[in-house]
């Protein structure tokens, strides 16, 4: 049995080695998604924007200064919060092993601007946590009992940041269309489940506005039962009444994204980003969740170094 496993392992390693020796695929430098190999790309966007937080009493995530960086070696790449190794690439297809930070815990953080940008003058104190409400969620203080079926952020135990790893497939087809499929598993023992993403991206250029690039993306985010349960489930670890306990189920949340970028010159561009994600009922049914969408909005200028 051990011998068979050993043969299988050798076979898989050999297969990966063969695959990783495949022809190196270049792209046209003028294409928007084409980056020079072996060089860091760094840009910073300054403007106004927000990622809405769907949780009860959750802070929206402010977008004021948004850094954007990447490094693509011949096989290794770093792209913002993702680290990857591309073991196969052709003109149209890339297969990569990737690892990235899971998004979900960002909704459980306190993102008030005072926590990000230190204000030494006034109003520097963060919002006072509403412990009274937290400790008395059932409304025994004379409130209307039957209206309280929600759980606020401060009432639940602290969620942890999760690191995921898995496989990513990028398929470039037709006229700059890009399909991305990602399947990741938690690797730092936080929720011990899977999540995935399917995204179809299509850039558009217009001859009347030659320096403008409009990119539309539609996609779905899939979260396994384990992930939904860890972040949005409620159990005895949380300081809430048993009636509010919730067990998560797998979710599929579609989303739409629009990014418009107008290049003023080689380094400066004006950027507009809009995104809406429609949350699956397995998320919105959680007493923690207030909104059924997550919206992202940003408008500003970007400088590429």
């Amino acid at each position, binding site marked *: 049995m051990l011998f068979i496993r050993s043969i299988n392992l050798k076979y898989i390693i050999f297969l990966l080695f063969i695959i990783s020796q495949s022809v190196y695929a270049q792209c046209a430098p003028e294409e928007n998604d084409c980056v020079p*190999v072996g060089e860091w790309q760094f840009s910073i966007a300054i403007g106004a924007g927000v990622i809405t937080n769907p949780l009860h009493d959750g802070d929206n995530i402010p977008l004021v200064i948004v850094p954007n960086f990447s490094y693509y070696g011949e096989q290794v790449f770093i792209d913002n*919060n993702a680290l990857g190794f591309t073991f196969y690439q052709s003109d149209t297809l890339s297969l990569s092993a990737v690892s990235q930070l899971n998004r979900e815990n960002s909704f459980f953080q306190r993102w008030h601007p005072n926590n990000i940008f230190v204000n030494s003058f006034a109003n520097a104190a963060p919002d006072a946590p509403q412990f009274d409400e937290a400790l008395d969620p059932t409304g025994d203080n004379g409130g209307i009992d039957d209206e309280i079926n929600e759980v606020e952020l401060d009432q639940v135990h602290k969620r942890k940041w999760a690191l995921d790893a898995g496989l990513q497939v990028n398929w470039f087809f037709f006229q700059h269309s890009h399909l991305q499929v990602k399947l990741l598993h938690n690797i730092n023992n936080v929720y011990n489940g899977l999540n995935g993403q399917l995204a179809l991206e299509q850039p558009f250029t217009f001859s009347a506005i030659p320096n403008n690039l409009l990119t539309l993306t539609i996609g779905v985010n899939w979260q396994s039962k384990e992930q939904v349960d860890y972040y949005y489930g409620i159990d005895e670890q949380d300081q809430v009444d048993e009636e509010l306990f919730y067990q998560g189920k797998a979710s599929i949340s579609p989303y739409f994204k629009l990014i418009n970028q107008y290049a003023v010159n080689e380094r400066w561009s004006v950027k507009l980003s809009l995104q809406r994600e429609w949350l699956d009922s397995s998320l919105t049914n959680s007493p923690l969740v207030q909104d059924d969408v997550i919206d992202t909005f940003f408008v500003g200028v970007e400088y590429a170094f």
Partner: protein
Amino acid sequence: MRFNTWITLLLFSFVSITALANNEKSEQESVIEFSIKPLVCIVKKPGDACSMTATVSWQSATVINSCLYQGITKVACWLNKKKVKAVIEINIEENMEYTLRDDNHQIIAQQLITINSSLAKKYRRRLRAGWSLF
């Protein structure tokens, strides 16, 4: 009639002299054999400056005074020479035209020295769908 003859002779002389001068000039250019070797400077990566030792040689049918220019900068001059072979240091950051000029600063020969990188710049596709924080 006599006046017309003089005019005709004058015009003929002018045309002949001009043709002769042009012919001499083209002959002078055509007899120059000019070369700089090597023609290509290899650098490690694109954008790197190039430094190399090159051999300049030229040969003319007649004795001439000439100067070698790197772009608009004078590099070397030779007086009353028919044949020259010299070693020069080349320091350039981009493709550069070398010219050999006569006393009148007229270009009598030219040669382009190009820079090539041993590691040609490679590109690959960014593997991320759109601009986003997560």
